[in-house]
């Protein structure tokens, strides 16, 4: 059983109060009764002594004032049972070798009481004797007082003790409750506040009404919570900054890596090369770029490339095509990875058509300002590749395989603002797209392969004518 602080304090105070109450209830009355009895005995002895002295003076000095006064006091006492003059005589035996003291009653007040000169005290009476010696009479004064007053006094003491004990207990209980409450309430408030702080609520504070140790604890607690709150705000700020930086780095990473590959690289520290059975590789290249570039400054050239490739980036993003790299004025991208899909041939041809449209539009804009435009050649091929990252620095996601070479060769064999596709791709899209057979064209390293110009979507054939 776990006792609360309040219960412990209350029990402690109650224990002390209970001991005190028991002391008042038992020890104190016993002590008072003993004092009462002693005082009673002393008082009776004093009476007996006074009367005996009065008798002695009366018999020796013939002055009865003392004994009269003493007896008046004694007789006026309601507790008096009797007062007697007991005569003591020595009675020798016949051989006169030993004697005994015989007592006889000379006079008793009140007269009607039969007094035993040898009577001892008992529960009902206290008998006290004081001897006196005079030339004419030896004896003792015997006083007997009733113990009824003692019993009455004892009862009163016990009642008073019981009442006092009860009052002390109640007051102690009340004080104990107040004390326990005064200590436990702030402690419990501290506990509750600490629990809430533990749950993350750093707005907690406790009210301090006292300046004692508990009050100091409350002040320290409030300071701790404030410090924690400040620290957490600073941590949150740092975390936001960190997240921002992470987001930036992720964006940078995603710029150079496919998201799935980037996640795999972040998760495992490396990305395995992966084989894809079917992807569509798209190459673009600006026709006569070298000759055009010689007419431009390097900055202007780069700006133009950046503008065009940015347009390409926006187009292929719409078709979920992964940009691989740019090499000079060449732009390489692939559809169908890193997440495999079945629409990659269509995505690639749609993107190629849109690139052509975009370049034609851009050329018109340049011609309008008197600048020369760029003609773009596009080659597309569908086939298997292996994709992955090589090296440990400057990660670059790349694809390898004959499909890449074929697509590159198709681009080389293409014409200005034309999309040159392979037979494999043609066989896939021919139902939906209008294509023109170019025949078999010899390309380096592959020999003669059939090629097709992509004219456009069958419904939109007129557009490219």
């Amino acid at each position, binding site marked *: 059983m776990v006792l609360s602080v309040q219960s412990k304090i209350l029990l402690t105070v109650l224990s002390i109060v209970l001991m005190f109450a028991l002391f008042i209830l038992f020890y104190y009355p016993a002590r008072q009764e003993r004092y009462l009895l002693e005082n009673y005995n002393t008082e009776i002895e004093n009476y007996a002594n006074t009367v005996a002295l009065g*008798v002695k003076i*009366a*018999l020796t000095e*013939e*002055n*009865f*004032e003392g*004994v*009269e006064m003493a*007896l008046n006091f004694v*007789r006026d006492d309601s507790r008096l049972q009797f*007062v007697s*003059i007991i005569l003591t005589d020595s009675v020798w035996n016949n051989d006169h070798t030993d004697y005994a003291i015989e007592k006889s009653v*000379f*006079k*008793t*007040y009140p*007269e009607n009481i039969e007094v035993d000169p040898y009577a001892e005290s008992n529960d009902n009476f206290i008998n006290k004797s004081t001897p006196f010696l005079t030339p*004419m*009479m030896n004896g003792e004064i015997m006083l007997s007082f009733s113990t009824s007053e003692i019993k009455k006094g004892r009862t009163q003491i016990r009642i008073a003790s019981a009442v006092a004990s009860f009052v002390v207990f109640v007051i102690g209980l009340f004080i104990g409750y107040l004390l326990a409450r005064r200590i436990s309430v702030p402690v419990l408030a501290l506990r509750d506040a600490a629990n809430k702080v533990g749950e993350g609520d750093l707005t907690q504070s406790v009210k301090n009404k006292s300046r004692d140790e508990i009050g100091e604890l409350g002040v320290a607690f409030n300071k701790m919570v404030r410090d924690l709150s400040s620290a957490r705000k600073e941590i949150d700020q740092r975390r936001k900054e960190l997240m921002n930086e992470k987001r930036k780095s992720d964006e940078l990473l995603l710029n150079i890596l496919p998201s799935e590959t980037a996640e795999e690289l972040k998760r495992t520290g490396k990305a395995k090369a992966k084989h894809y059975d079917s992807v569509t590789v798209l190459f673009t290249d600006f026709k006569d770029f070298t000759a055009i570039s010689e007419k431009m400054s390097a900055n202007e050239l780069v700006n133009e490339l950046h503008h065009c490739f940015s347009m390409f980036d926006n187009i292929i993003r719409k078709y979920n095509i992964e940009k691989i790299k740019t090499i000079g004025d060449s732009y390489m991208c692939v559809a169908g990875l890193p997440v495999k899909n079945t629409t990659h041939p269509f995505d690639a041809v749609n993107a190629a058509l849109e690139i052509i449209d975009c370049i034609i539009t851009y050329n018109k804009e340049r011609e309008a300002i008197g600048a020369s435009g760029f003609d773009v050649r596009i080659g597309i091929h569908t086939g298997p590749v292996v994709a992955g990252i090589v090296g440990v620095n400057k990660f670059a996601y790349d694809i390898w395989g004959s499909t890449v070479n074929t697509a590159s060769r198709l681009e080389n064999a293409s014409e200005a603002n034309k999309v040159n596709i392979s037979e494999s791709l043609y066989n896939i899209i021919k139902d939906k797209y209008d294509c023109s057979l170019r025949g078999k064209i010899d390309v380096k390293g592959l020999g003669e392969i059939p090629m097709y110009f992509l004219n456009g979507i069958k419904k939109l054939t007129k557009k490219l004518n």
Partner: protein
Amino acid sequence: MKRILYIFILSLFIGLLLPWSVNAQDEQLVVIGNAVSVPSEIDMNLLKSVFKGEKLRWNDGSIVNIALMKTSTPIGSYTSNKIYNMTGNELNKYFLALVFQGKVKAPTFFNSVNELEAYVAQTPGAIGVLQKVNDTLLKIILVDGKKQI
């Protein structure tokens, strides 16, 4: 010379015997009383009753105060014998018994006549016994019509 010595010894003997002869002749008692409350004449029986504590108040209601010479004095001893028919010790025991039981106010005992006379003169209801009265202003109580008993 022998005659002178004889006369001296005789005179000394007579001188020694003279007080006894005087006491014997003067063993007559005079009862005195306070001017207030105490009657001027009483009979012997009443006198004994008063001195034994049997009569506690005078007719006017005042308390009887008995004044006696201590029994250790000749007059006290004589008074004890004459009025109480007791020895001094018996008288003391007698009054102790009465006083103890609250029946009487004990007599006041004096060492000298003057003290007794002054007490009787100043204490209402006081009555005392002397051999002879020095204070001529004191009230002498006639007992059975006589000044001496």
